Structure formats: C-alpha cells, structure tokens
C-alpha cells in the first residue's frame, strides 16, 4: 500500500499493464521523453522504448485512427489526448468507426482513450471540457470516470484489459489535489459498477468524477444539520450501474444528480429519466439536477467559479431537497 496522488495512480496502473502485456502500446503527443503534458507517462520511454511509447505527429485523427487499426489486429493501444477538448478533432474516427467496429465487423477493438478532462484549472473554453455526454450517446463505448486514486488505478487496468473501446476520463483538477491509499497489488475495478462512498438515509447524491469530492463535503455539512446524505459514486458511466442508483433512491426517496458537465443534454438527464421510470413510487420529491451552467467555459476565475458546481451550491441544493 502506498499513498499516491490520482495522477500517480493512473501512471502506476498503466505501467503495470505495460509490464504485464507487451501488446499494450501508448500513442500520443509529447508522451515520450517529455512524459506527456501532465507527466502521466514520465519515465515510460526509458523503460518500454519508443516502439511502445509512441510520440505521434500532432494529429488526433491519426492517433485515434491508428489506435483503432492497431486494436483490431490484436494490440491494446492506449491513446492519450493532450486535453479532452482535443478529442473533437478525432471525433469522426471514434464515433463513426471505432464505436461500431464490433457491431459491424464482429471483432474486438480493445483500446483506451485517455481524456484529461474538466474545468477548475483556469483552462478557459478550450482546455476544460467534460466530453462524456458525447460518447454516452454513441452506442459502443464504455466510459469510466474515477474520483479517487484507488479507482483510477483499478479502472485504467480494467480499461486496458477490456475488449472494447473505453473512454477514460481523468479529471485534471484531481491529478495532484487528491491523494489516497493505492495497493501495490495487481487489481482491477469492474467496469459498470459504482460504489456508495458514504451511506445515508435522507437523500442520495448521485455523481462521478470531480464532483464526488464536493458531494462528500456536502454530506459532512448536511450531517451537521441532521440530514443523512448518501453519496453514490458511479465510477462507470457506460454501462451505468442502474441497480446501484435505484437501490439508493429507493432507500432515501430523494435524488440529487450532480455533474461538472453542463446541465442540458448531460448524463444527469438520463439518470433522472431512469429514476422516474423505475423508482417513481419511491420518490418523496422531484429529482434534482445540478451541473455547470449552459455556457462555454469562461476563463477569468470569478466567471469560471460562477459557472461551475461547487460544494456550496451542492449543499444549498441538498438543503432545499431535504426540506421538500
């Protein structure tokens, strides 16, 4: 067991998978000697060589297309987008080609697309995206979004071993701000399963990624007010752990769905629909959603702060929902 940051846990998981299986290769911009924009692959070049740690041309379509091609002939490529925002320039490859390969061709396409995502680092409109909803809508992807180092390692290892294209969302603000115990052992976290981070009885906060930490703060704050909040950390967005969501809502009768992605068309809408279809008679209040505002991500700190969800906004929403 070691105390690792979120980013160290991702690196560790990747490293272990590359040691374990030589069909695992990395493709991305600046990932070789430089170690990647965020240093996830620092030291990888020296250990695994430039044939497996491939510093590519600056061309997202080429990276994602090449990863797809390598995957269908038996490699296990992990493609790094320097920022999640830039996956859009390779979007056609992923949604038109990669996602439906198994459906059309009946052969696996085992690849991982690592997306350093999320706002709150003053990245402005082009370095702050939460792109999960785009991929959520396209059948064929699996999507994971760890919130703690333990899961970051377990999920990257599971993603590498999965026989499908996995979108791995790694929140940039968590990279060095979150630390946790990470076992040295070879373990994976099952894709498609979430966890209850905090048990509670009065209302459920259903969330993933960076906002899990805000939800936990909210649970602490609400506990002082005598409200017992359950925090459901989805970990996987596709497949979605509907049983876990429904079990929690059936117990507490109230649901607050939170994500950092902007609200309209976000995954929260789908979760709200599932709850209302399958747990309506257990609800004691309308389902609440909280996300970022429906605007592009602004740059200046006060604007960005106004735009994003935070523990204060979550607590206010939870308080309101508890009182309903």
């Amino acid at each position, binding site marked *: 067991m070691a105390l690792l940051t979120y980013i160290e846990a991702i690196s560790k998981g990747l490293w272990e998978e590359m040691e374990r299986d030589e069909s695992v290769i990395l493709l991305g911009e600046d990932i070789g000697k430089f170690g990647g924009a965020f240093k996830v692959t620092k030291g990888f070049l020296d250990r695994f060589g430039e044939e497996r740690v491939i510093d590519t041309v600056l061309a997202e379509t*080429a990276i994602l297309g090449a990863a797809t*091609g390598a995957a269908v002939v038996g490699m296990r490529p992990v493609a790094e987008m320097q920022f999640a925002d830039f996956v859009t320039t390779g979007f056609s490859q992923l949604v038109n080609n990669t996602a439906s390969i198994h459906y059309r061709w009946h052969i696996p396409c085992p690849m991982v697309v690592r997306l350093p995502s999320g706002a709150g680092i003053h990245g402005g409109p082009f370095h702050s995206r939460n792109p999960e909803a785009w991929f959520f809508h396209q059948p064929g992807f699996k999507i994971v979004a760890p919130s703690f180092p333990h899961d970051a390692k377990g999920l990257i290892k599971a993603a590498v071993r999965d026989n499908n294209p996995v979108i791995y969302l790694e929140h940039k603000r968590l990279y060095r701000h979150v630390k946790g115990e990470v076992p040295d052992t070879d373990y994976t976290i099952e894709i498609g399963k979430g966890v209850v981070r905090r048990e509670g009885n009065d209302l459920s906060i259903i969330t993933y990624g960076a906002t899990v930490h805000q939800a936990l703060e909210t649970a602490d704050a609400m506990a002082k007010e005598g409200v017992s909040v359950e925090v459901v950390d989805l970990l996987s967005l596709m497949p979605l752990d509907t049983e876990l969501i429904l079990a929690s809502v059936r117990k507490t009768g109230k649901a607050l769905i939170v994500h950092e992605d902007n609200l309209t068309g976000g995954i929260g809408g789908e979760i709200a629909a599932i709850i209302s279809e399958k747990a309506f008679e257990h609800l004691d209040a309308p389902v609440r959603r909280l996300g970022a505002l429906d605007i592009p991500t602004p740059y200046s700190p006060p604007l960005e702060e106004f735009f994003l969800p935070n523990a204060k906004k979550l607590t206010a929403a939870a308080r309101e929902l508890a009182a309903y």
Partner: protein
Amino acid sequence: MYRLTNEQYLDLYYYMRLTREFEETILKLYRQGKIVGGAYTGNGNEATAVGSAFALEKHDYLFPMHRDMGAHLVKGQTLRNLMLQHLARGNSLSKGRDGTGHYADPPLRIYGNISHLGAMVPMACGVALASKLRREGSVVLTYIGDGGSNVGDIHEALAMASVQRLPLVLIIENNQFAYSTPVAKQKAMEKYSDRAMGYGMPGFTIDGTDIEEVYQVCKQAVERARRGVGPTLIESVTMRMHGHSAHDGADYVPKELLAEWRKKDPVERIERTLIERKVLTPSVKAQYEEKIQATLDDAVRFAVESPYPPGEEAVVGVYAE
C-alpha cells in the same frame, strides 16, 4: 521490373473479368430491386484494383474502397460472401449490419471501408504500425478517391505514416469525378502524386487502365514498404465509367470524355494484349467465361436463398465479450 508469368497474366485477366461480370450482376440485381441499399461499381477501375492487390502477399493487409471489388477478389474473397453482403443476409460477413464491401474478414486480412471517406487510412496506419512492431513484414495497401483525398484524415495519416516509416501504400484513384464534381474542382496542382513530396515520400502517377504499369509500380511500392523504408503514394489515373452509384445517371459527365476513355477500357486492354501475345486462347477465354458465369450463378442463388437476419438480432454484439 517484376516479371509476370503467363499464368499470372491470365490470373490478372480472370480477376478483372470476374470483377466486371460481378458488378454487372450487381447492377442487374439492383434493377430487380434485390439489392437492399445502393449499388456501386468500379467500372474503369478494374486494372487498378486487381493489379494493386495482385502485388500483395497473403499475409499483407488490404483496406479497399468501394471501387475496388477486384482487390477483394484477388485477396481471396468469395462471390458468395460479397453477394450476401449486398443482399444484407444474416449469414453475410457483417451479419447484415452493413452492406457492399463494408465488412472485415480477418483470416483474409481484408478490412472494408466505412462511408466516411478517408477514415480508413489512419486506421490502416495503425495496422501498419502493429505490423512494424511485431516484425511481421506485412504491408498495408489502401485507397482513396480524388475527392476523398481532400479529407483531413488523409493528411494526418500520411503525416504519421511518413514520420513513422510505416509499411503503407496509398493509392489515390483519380477517376475524374467525385460524385458530380470534376477533378479540376478538387485539386489545383497538376498531379496528386505531387502531394507525396510534402510528406517526404515517393509519389508516382500511373495509367490506371494499364494493368502492367499498375502492377509494376504497386509491387515496387509494396516491396519498398516491406523493407521498412516507408510509405508510397500512387496516383492511379482512371475514369469512373458509371455514375457515383446505380441511381446516378451521371448526365454531368461529357459524352466525349466517356468515349475517349472507353477506348482504354482496362478489361478489353488486357484481353487484347493477351490475345496478341497468344497467352489468352479462345478456348481458355471460353473456359473462364463459363467458370465466371457458374460462380456468379451459384453466388446469386446462394445469397437469394439465404435468410435475412431475424430482427431481434439487431441488439446483439454492440460490445465484445
């Protein structure tokens, strides 16, 4: 020069003739309403498709486009499988999930195209990358049209392929029209092969109706790629003798242009040459015609008698196990 034996010449002829007859049959079936979606032919492109694929070894990879039916055939695809694809049957290679040449056949190392032009070339780079890493010595051959060559995917793929020295050969099939748009509205430079210079790779422009030239240049490019030297760009100049697809009468193509190109019909060209050289005798020609007709009849019958997939099968297989 790579010498071709008489037997190989006859193979080339057979595959070109087979391609032509297969596509004529597809058009007939289309008019009979038996083809589920669109029907595309490569009439005029047979020498390019057949001659290029003929330069491959069994362990090489093929990423054909929709005018390259001859390449599928040379690589070993059966008429039955191709017919099943066109008729959207449950026992087709894609199990009815997609049509025409849109399938993969890993044992034959054929990976069909998707409809987004250019999308397969970055993917072909990935296969070439895997081949290089695993020291397979396998080459990837792929194609794009004159119009499709403008899609950004092509630029990105060639940038990657040239820098990584990937074992890749890209043929730009300049068949004068991208749907209705003449090639003059697709490029400002003289030759598509001029683009190769921008990637630091060799580029050639060839007469795509001349099977010998196609084969020679493609074979050199394939063997160069196999030696690990890097990719090659080949512009094959041909003519799209039919419309974009079967529904398209192609009124926008000048009649004189078609008449001019008809003189260079690739199938007739090789036939004339082989008859002149006394390689193709009337009896061999008759044998081939009989064999082609029998194979086609069998494929049509087999496909027509094969069932569609059951509707509920639609939900199976979005994910791999």
